């Protein structure tokens, strides 16, 4: 890890800290993510092996943030561990539990660095010196790239499960959007709180997850894509709940309280309660600047029954994208 010079902490990934760093040899900017590699008596754990290699394969796509390198830091080596600790910035926040340099094997994932993310991008259009709508062409273009990336992951059997604007990196100059924070869902269980005890956002979470469904599939990501689509148009979150219960109420107030007829089995989900009976509102009113094709696509992403929700692959063929020049992708 001596190869990289840590510049600043840029974020709190779900699985640990993320640093902006510079490759000392080439000057290339990178994002460094650190995860602990728990060894067992059978050597490198199979879950970590399968997931990092999956990430390595998926990140070859243009629509997924590129994994440039995987660096293992041997916990047994004091010198290397100390160097890694130095790269950490000496904040004394090593979450290995033991003393810094005390020797837990670590894995550093080195990703390409993009200058901003979709959250900051949307924020810059909502507030600041020059508030303005996100151009319709940009919404269309970003949504298409997002769907390309999601379709790519799904075709490899991978659910993202935490799609949100902060996880979508953006290159403003080139108009590129890429999915980040992907794939480490099995070996590294999804925590409810991140390492700084920031509450993980619920705004993009699908109703079946909020209702405690034991089985979920590609629909969870498509729900998130719908929320992100609406947020690009509105410049504010569609369902900004601050607890799981409030999150559901936000959803129900707009889309109506789900019924067994709409969504067979909903009332038998683990966390289902009796809710106020809201009637569905006109979705177009929540996204006033969006045309009818856009509203139609959005409504298909926000279907209550996960089985009815549109897939990423089908969404790419939706008429909303008819006016997009697809040859650029």
């Amino acid at each position, binding site marked *: 890890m001596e190869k990289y010079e840590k510049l600043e902490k840029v974020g709190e990934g779900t699985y640990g800290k993320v640093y902006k760093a510079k490759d000392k040899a080439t000057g290339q900017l990178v994002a460094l993510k650190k995860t602990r590699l728990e*060894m067992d*008596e*059978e*050597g*490198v754990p*199979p879950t970590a*092996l*399968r997931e*990092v*290699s*999956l990430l*390595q*394969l998926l990140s*070859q*796509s243009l629509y997924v943030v590129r994994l440039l*390198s*995987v*660096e*293992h830091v*041997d916990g047994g080596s004091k010198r290397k561990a100390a160097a890694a600790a130095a790269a950490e910035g000496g904040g004394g926040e090593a979450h290995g539990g033991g003393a810094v340099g005390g020797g837990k094997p670590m894995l550093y994932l080195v990703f390409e660095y993009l200058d901003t993310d979709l959250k900051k991008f949307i924020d810059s259009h909502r507030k600041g010196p020059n508030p303005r709508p996100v151009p319709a062409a940009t919404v269309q273009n970003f949504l298409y790239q997002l769907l*390309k990336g999601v*379709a*790519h992951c*799904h*075709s*490899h*059997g*991978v*659910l993202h499960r935490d799609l949100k604007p902060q996880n979508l990196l953006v290159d403003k100059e080139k108009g590129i959007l890429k999915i980040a924070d992907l794939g480490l869902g*099995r070996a590294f269980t999804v925590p409810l709180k991140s390492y700084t005890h920031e509450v993980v956002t619920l705004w993009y979470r699908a109703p079946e997850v909020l209702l405690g469904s034991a089985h979920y*599939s*590609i629909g969870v990501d498509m729900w998130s894509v719908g929320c992100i689509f609406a947020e690009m148009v509105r410049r504010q979150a569609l369902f900004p709940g601050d607890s799981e219960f409030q999150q559901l109420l936000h959803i129900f107030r707009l889309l109506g309280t789900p019924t067994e007829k709409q969504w067979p089995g909903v009332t038998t989900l683990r966390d289902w309660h009796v809710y106020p009976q809201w009637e569905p509102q006109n979705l177009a009113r929540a996204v006033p600047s969006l045309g009818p094709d856009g509203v139609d696509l959005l409504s298909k992403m926000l279907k209550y029954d996960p089985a009815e929700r549109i897939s*990423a*692959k089908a969404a*790419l063929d939706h008429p909303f994208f008819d006016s997009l020049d697809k040859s650029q992708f």
Partner: protein
Amino acid sequence: MDFDLENPLTNFDDRFPDKTFLFLVESDHMPSEKYLAGLRSVGCSDDLSVRRDIVSLISQLCCNLDPTLSYLAINYVDRFLSSHKLQRPKPWVLRLLAVSCVALAAKMLKTEISLADVQSDGGGFIFDAHSIQRMELLVLGTLQWRMRSITPFCFISFFVSLLKLRDPPLRQAIRARASEIILKAQNDIKLLEFKPSITAASALLRASQELCPLQFATFKSDISSCSFVNKDILLHCYNEMQDAATEGFESALDVHSSSDTPINVLDHHFSCSDSEMTNVAASTVRSQRSLKRRKTQ
């Protein structure tokens, strides 16, 4: 819809939106040109004997396991040796590399075997977990954790779908025979230079020539008209593949006469009648299927 998250041999299927992807990345999972040149060069047989020894060790270690496991392990070895040239390595180094690559492949394929099981072939050195772990990490670092190798098996379904085969038993037989040829082709250093997709397409052509010669010409034009396939390279590979294909098909018993071909458990698989061979490969395919099914339940 459920997923087959754990299958490292990524496969084309109906859900695949972007068929170009595997073709774009397949070259990342191949041995280097330099390494292959070393294997082929006349004066430098060291590389070749190192590879042959390791392949033979892996075959011993995997003798009762799914042949795709040894295929994957040998792929790791070839890619590892592409970056680390071993100069007259001690036998235990070769064995440690073989054991570690088998252990990694077994983890990737979710084959439930322990390190003790892997090493129970009576082949001498028994390594402790720490040594194997260090070797595993060395291999992982060298391969940059790209352990989901894109192999020819990833492309079989795609090419079979181009062949408009209406008869399911024939389709199954061609797949099975092509899989055997692919396994066999890994022993032939002449064939290592071809991309996995070309190897898969050639193996399917070889299989169809054996099993349904009347349709062969149509299949050849179906596959060569695919935009991802370079027709000249395909034919080159197809011609080079003759040995691998006929060895398994006809003269299975004299595998030892081919000096370049290491003794391999696969040869033993093929030391049986043609119909049995088809059964062996077909049951391999079936067992992978049933494994998939179990996972998705």
